[in-house]
Every structure is written in C-alpha cells, then in structure tokens.
C-alpha cells in the first residue's frame, strides 16, 4: 500500500472520536447566540474544530505517505499504568508505606534490567524519605499506616 500513513490515519481518527465524545456531552447545553453565549457555545466550536482537524489528518494519512504505526511497548506500559492505578486505590485506605512500596515494586517490573535486591533496598529508602518529606517536614494530610 503506497502513499499511506497509518500513524496519521489512527491519530486523526482518535481526534474524531474525541470530538464525538465531546459532542455527546455538550448536546444538551444551551448554545445561546454570539452576543450572549450560553455554556455550550465555545465547547461546540472547539469540538467541531477538533473533529474537522481529525478528518483532515486522517484523510491526509490515506493519501500522503508518512510513517506507519509504531508498536506499543506494552512490557513497559502495563507495569507503570497498573502501579499508578494501584497507588490511587491504596493511598487512602492503606497509607503511604503500602501504597508507596506497591508503586515502586509494581512499577519496577517495567525496568529492562531489573535487580530485585537493589530495588528492594532503594525502594525502602525511598518510602522512608517520602514519609519524612511529606508527612514529617511538610505535614501534609496523609496516612502512613493502614487504617483498621
């Protein structure tokens, strides 16, 4: 297939999808008119613009040659994303020590050259440091240990 760019095609389609998503959220807002704009006026303009550019970029991807799709590095991506999600659900009920240790350990699976002993030692020091910085020095409202 000559003269195509999958990178642009997919990128453009994503913009179109975003535009559709935005329209679905603003359709019931009052538009108003130019002299007295309602809450829906400006977002409608923008969502329309995003959609138009999406169509243009996707269309250009069909016609003009360009880079193809890059493969996604799931091996690095998954541990990092899972680690953040774990942290978000753990921080309130379980506190900084559990959430912090969790994010470091889960996230470390993304490292291409992982060494567990080193990571465990470093992680322990890191968690201690964050507790000292955020809780002791800055006195932020964070729990250190799990609440039962």
């Amino acid at each position, binding site marked *: 297939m000559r003269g195509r760019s999958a990178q642009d095609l997919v990128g453009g389609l994503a913009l179109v999808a975003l535009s559709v998503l935005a329209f679905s959220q603003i359709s019931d807002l009052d538009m108003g008119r130019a002299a007295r704009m309602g809450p829906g006026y400006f*977002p409608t303009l923008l969502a329309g613009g995003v959609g138009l550019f999406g169509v243009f*970029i996707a269309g250009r991807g069909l016609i003009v040659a360009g880079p193809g799709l890059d493969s996604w590095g799931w091996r690095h991506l998954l541990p990092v994303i899972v680690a953040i*999600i774990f942290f978000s659900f753990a921080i309130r009920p379980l506190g900084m020590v559990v959430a912090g240790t969790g994010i470091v350990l889960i996230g470390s699976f993304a490292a291409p*050259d992982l060494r567990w002993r080193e990571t465990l030692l*470093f992680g322990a020091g890191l968690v201690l440091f964050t507790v000292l910085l*955020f809780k002791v020095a800055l006195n*932020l409202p964070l729990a250190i240990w799990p609440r039962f």
Partner: protein
Amino acid sequence: MDQVFSNLALGFGAAVTPINLGLCFIGALVGTLIGVLPGLGPIATIAILLPITFYLDPLGALIMLAGIYYGAQYGGSTTAILVNMPGETSSVVTTLDGHQMARQGRAGPALAIAALGSFFAGSVATFLVALFGPLLAGIAQKFGPAEYFSLMLTGLVGATVLASGSVVKAVAMILVGLLLGSVGSDIETGEPRMTFGIPQIAEGINFTTLAVGLFGIAEILRNLEKHAEDRSVLGGRIIGLMPTWRDIKQSALPVLRGTGIGSVLGILPGNGAVLAPYASYTLEKKLSKTPSRFGKGAIEGVAGPESANNAGAQTSFIPLLTLGIPPNAVMAMMVGAMTMQGIIPGPTVMTENPTLFWGMIASMWIGNAMLVIINLPLVGIWVRLLRVPYRLLFPAILLFCCIGVYTINSSHVDVLLVALFGLVGYFLLKHGFEPAPLLLAFVLGPLLEENLRRALLIARGDPAIFITRPISAFLLLVAVGLLAVVLLPSVRKRREEVFHEED
C-alpha cells in the same frame, strides 16, 4: 532608569531574606539536578513540586519554581558536554561541539564557558525583564477583552509556528487543549460541562494532573522504551576548569550574540529556550571564518547556544509577568502556581504586588549567580549522579508524581486521571503530536473563552470588534502573518531542517 534601580532595590530587599535565599538555592539545585538527568524535564518537575509550594508564601514559591526552570538550562549543558546526550531539549546543540571538546580533554573549559556564558546571558536578560516589564504592563492596562482575546489567539498561533513537527497537528493539539480546558462548570451559569457526571472534575480538570500525566508519565514510558542507551560518562577527573585567554576571546562575541537572540526568542510565544540555541549555533557557524571547526570542538558552538538558551528562559517571564499570557508550557505551569496562590498573572501584579514582581526578578539574578557556583566547583557530584541507573530513577519519579498529585485535593480520581493522561501522552508521542501546545492551550482556554464572551457581549455579537480596535487588529495581523510565513514553501523546508536535527 532611576525607577528601574529603585525597583530593583525593592526587589533585592524582598529576595535577600534567609528563607527566600534558601528557596532560591533549592530551586537552582533541583533545577540543576533535573537538568543533568536526562528524561526528567522542568515541566514534570514543577508539576510534581507544585503541591509543596502551596504551603509557602507566594514570593518564595515563585522564586523556587523559577529557579528550577533556569537551573535546568545550566544542568542540561553538563550532561551534553560529558555524556554526549542532552540533559534538556534546550541543550541538544551543545552536544555537537561540547562533547567533542570533552573528548579532546577540554571538558573543563567547555563547562566553564557554558556556565559563565549562561551567567552573563542570565544577568542581561534579567535586566531586560526589569527594563521592559513596566513598559509592557503599562500598555497591557489599556487592554480590553477584545485585545486580550486577540493577544491570546496570537500567542497560540505563535506556539504552533514555533513548535516542532507538523503545523496542522500542532493546531489540532491547541484545539484539544482548549476543549479540555472548558471541562468543568461554565463561568457564567455554573452549569457543569463535559464532566461525565464525575463530581471530582466538576470544577474542571486539575492542571497538575494533566501536566504530570502528559509530561511526567509519558516521558517515563518513552525513556523505558529506548533503554539500551549507553550513558558512558567520560571517565577520569575533570582537570583545569579555567578556560584559556584564547577561549575567552573566541567566546566573547558568540556569548553577546547568543544573549541577543535568546532574549528576543524568549519573549515570543513558543519555546524560546529550545529554539534559540539552534538559531545561535547556525549564526555562529555562518559568521565563523573557519566553519569547518564546528562539530569538532569549536568553543563558539558551546558559548553561543548556551547563552541563548539561558537568556530565552529568563525573558520568557516577560509576557507572563506583564500580560498574564504564558508564552510556553513551563510558563503555563507558573500560571498554575500563581493561581494556586491566589494571584492572577497580569499587569496588575506589578502595581498591586510590587514586592512579588521585583523580588522575583531580583531572585533570578541571585539564582544565576548561585548556579555558577553549583555547576562549576560541584561538577563532580553531578557526574556521579549520572551514574544512577534509570531502573532506580523512574520508580522514584513515579512515586513523587503520584504523591504530589494526590496531596493537591486528596482525590484518588486525580491519580487515576494521571494514568489516563499518561496513556494519552504516550499515544500523542507515538502519533507525532506535540503535547506542549496542548498544555498551553489548556491554561489559556478559560481566559480565552471569558474574553471572547465579554468582547462579543460589548459588541452585541458583532465580531468586527476584533478588527475595528487598532491594537486588537494589529495583533490579529501578526497572527495571520505568522501563519502565512510558516505556510510559505521555502520557510517550511527550512523549518523542517531545523527541527530535523533535533531528533
């Protein structure tokens, strides 16, 4: 002129307190640290530290955050010279000749010229901020909603022109940023818009969340992918920091020219600190009697660009402090910091809060002086830091990002959004979209909408208001001119060449 000096005296009085000096030092130190470390930029760092600054007083907070930004310009050159890898995007060109000098055993003079050139440029640019700040703020006080709207529009157009990569994609990113910025309650009616019924984003998407996701997390993902990079720090001790008399003579003019280029490009929208070093390098090579030396360790190729990026970092504060318009993504972070402190960036900062304004400017000069000390005698520490492997660094960054975002609102939804925006940022990188214009537009979005609505309300819905008011018309003309220039075939080709070297 007298006014400038009495103002500066006021500023130094405010900046030279033990706490503010300490914060300035911490900022410069952290800036150097992240500048030295590749893969952690000023945007992500400021985003991580924003929650902490909430507990400081406004002047102290801004002094520290500003220090991080210009400190990163100093630190970036150390990595560029010693490892042949840019610590920051703004020091890409320094690798060309700086690393060659290091290979010839002249790492010391290269580091010294980079630091001293940066110091000179920083001092001049700080003075320019003090000189032109009040002038611009005076003009800005005559601005009505129509002028503000046109100014922001011009700023956004400028950001696309000076962004790397496709202009069409940059404009698309601006629209997406504006759209994300309009999430939350409507400014007039308070009606929730595009909140998907999630109460945690009823007041809009948190700015830090977006910045940490798009820059912090996406950057980690990208770095992990190209892990095989070798960070071979040039072995051996660095002996003899002092440049020779000949080095200084060769560098003097490039430093001067670099300062000029950087100062001008820093004020313009887009990222002056990134663009200026390219412009300076190209100019020095053109002016040189022996252009063949470039790329083989010419000291002019270090002196010019390093001065340019620091001058640009300094003068990019001018539009922020006087007009309230951030010219690039880092300045957009500063808007976030100021808003968190209850300060609305704009011309009124100078009149209503002169100690804040002048204190910050004075601190820039102090910070630049501190940076020479942090960077030159302590260079050995930074070299050792470069040996910390990324497999330990990134979990630490991850942890700091999450704690930082969580503490702003104690909201776990914000942390989840960081994961989402991290994925979005990764998608953007994979599809050739630049995230910086998006962040800038996100910050400007609510302001742009408010001024558009107010201007059209005054004009009873007649859009002619934007071209019948002279300042507004002039600004729009500049925007059209910028767009026309970038679409001209010859400029387009040249622009692609410039940004191509960046990859």
